[in-house]
């Protein structure tokens, strides 16, 4: 906007404003009605949905679901989608950081004086697209397979180890095939190429932080898990998640 356009805007605005109504009581009435709606919704949700409290936090647990609040789903999905792609540099600079910067700088790179959405095709399209992408990612996050599942096909004798591993929550920090979080732990899809059985067992019982120790698991489960891990060579990745 140049100086002339700014003055034009202020002139138009002061005309529109002078034709308006006073804040009190007109806007105050609308705002109050809205406040009642907000309050009623919050109370209704509280009564209908309650406030559940899961089992007590246990750092060495064997079954848990590391789920964030639903409105963070889109962020986690974004990280998961960008991570393995060629776009690693983008992920490294941090997609959320970029997003916030783009948002905060918006008035400084969108400098046209036009305000009607239908005459700002780029901004409006970008806005609608962002809403759809965020909605879609939230949906993906909400419907993603439980993080306690591993999709890899294994011979029958490793099936038990696969279940134990899945339920032990390793996927919160490790990726196995297409499941799990890519970090903070290294990917385990081809762990058998890197560590022998004994080292796997040692890692389970005496790991480097932040990985919790699993030495309290029953011996038989631990061995089943090690058997499963020691045949992960990375060639069989299972079907990609849809």
């Amino acid at each position, binding site marked *: 906007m140049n100086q002339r356009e700014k003055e034009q805007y202020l002139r138009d*605005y002061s005309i529109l404003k002078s034709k308006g109504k006073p804040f009190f009581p007109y806007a105050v009435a609308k705002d109050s009605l*809205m406040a009642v709606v907000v309050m009623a919704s919050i109370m209704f*949700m509280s009564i209908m949905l309650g406030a559940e409290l899961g089992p007590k936090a246990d750092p060495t647990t064997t079954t848990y679901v590391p789920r964030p609040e639903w409105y963070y789903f889109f962020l986690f999905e974004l990280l998961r989608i960008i991570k393995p792609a060629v776009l690693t540099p983008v992920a490294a600079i941090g997609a959320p950081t970029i997003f916030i910067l783009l948002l905060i700088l918006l008035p400084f790179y969108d400098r046209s004086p036009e305000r009607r959405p239908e005459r700002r095709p780029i901004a409006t399209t970008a806005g609608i697209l962002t809403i759809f992408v965020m909605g879609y990612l939230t949906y993906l996050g909400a419907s993603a397979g439980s993080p306690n599942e591993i999709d890899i096909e294994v011979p029958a004798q490793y099936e038990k180890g696969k279940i134990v591993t899945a339920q032990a929550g390793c996927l919160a920090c490790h990726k196995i095939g297409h499941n799990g979080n890519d970090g903070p732990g290294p990917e385990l899809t081809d762990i058998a190429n890197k560590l022998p059985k004994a080292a796997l067992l040692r890692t389970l019982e005496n790991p480097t932080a932040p990985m919790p120790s699993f030495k309290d698991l029953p011996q038989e489960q631990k061995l089943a898990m090690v058997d499963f891990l020691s045949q992960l060579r990375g060639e069989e990745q299972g079907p990609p998640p849809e």
Partner: protein
Amino acid sequence: MAKTQLPTQPGAVKTGGARRKPTTRLGKAQETSFSAVDWVDERTSLSGGMRWLMFRKIPKGTNWFYTLGSATLFAFMSQAVTGVFLAMYYDPSAINAYESTRFLTNEVFLGEFVRGMHRWGSSVMVILIFLHMARVFFFGAYKYPRELNWCIGVILLVLTMAMSFTGYLLPFDQRSYWATIVGVNINGTAPLMGPFLSDFLRGGAEFGATTLSRFYAIHMLLIPGLLGALIGAHLYMVARLGTTAPPWMKAEVSPELREERV
């Protein structure tokens, strides 16, 4: 004290003196409340500011989308009030946090209701803040002269999300514990500030006993303080600059063409 005389303010003191002496009891009560208002006003000159705030004009065409900001504000106030009640029972130590939350939820009168309000109120506030931002975006309301208010708004958005993140750990159940570990670790992968931020949040390199009280202090003191101050700045700028008219409103000068709209 007797010798000191405040300079008489035009209006306030004079009208008080000019009013006829009330005889009825109701009249006396009214008189007292008037003079109480006058008393405050004489010392603060608040009435001018209130008049400026309440009777400023809202442009023609202002519609329901313009209530989303105040709805967000209201959700924030609801969070503040319910949060105070939760804080009366909550104990931010790794040993007692879960137990105190359980007690609050199951034993305290209306405990689960208030906790539920705080919990779902956070969802409502996040939805409303995004809707408000979308309104501002599609109406082009972030343009001259309101750029700075948009920037403050983005910071409010980040702070609101940070509120949710730090609050999620506090009940200290399995879900909140593990989600927060993963969250803090993901934080740590961000460039430059990432690792520092993670260490700051955890209170060290590892998730330990100080982490919980740190999250608590951030959640109930640091961020709400910042939020409150910035909301104040945000609202001051709104009142100062006025809210935009909807973008399709035309500024016509001729009064014949004026159509009355609500």
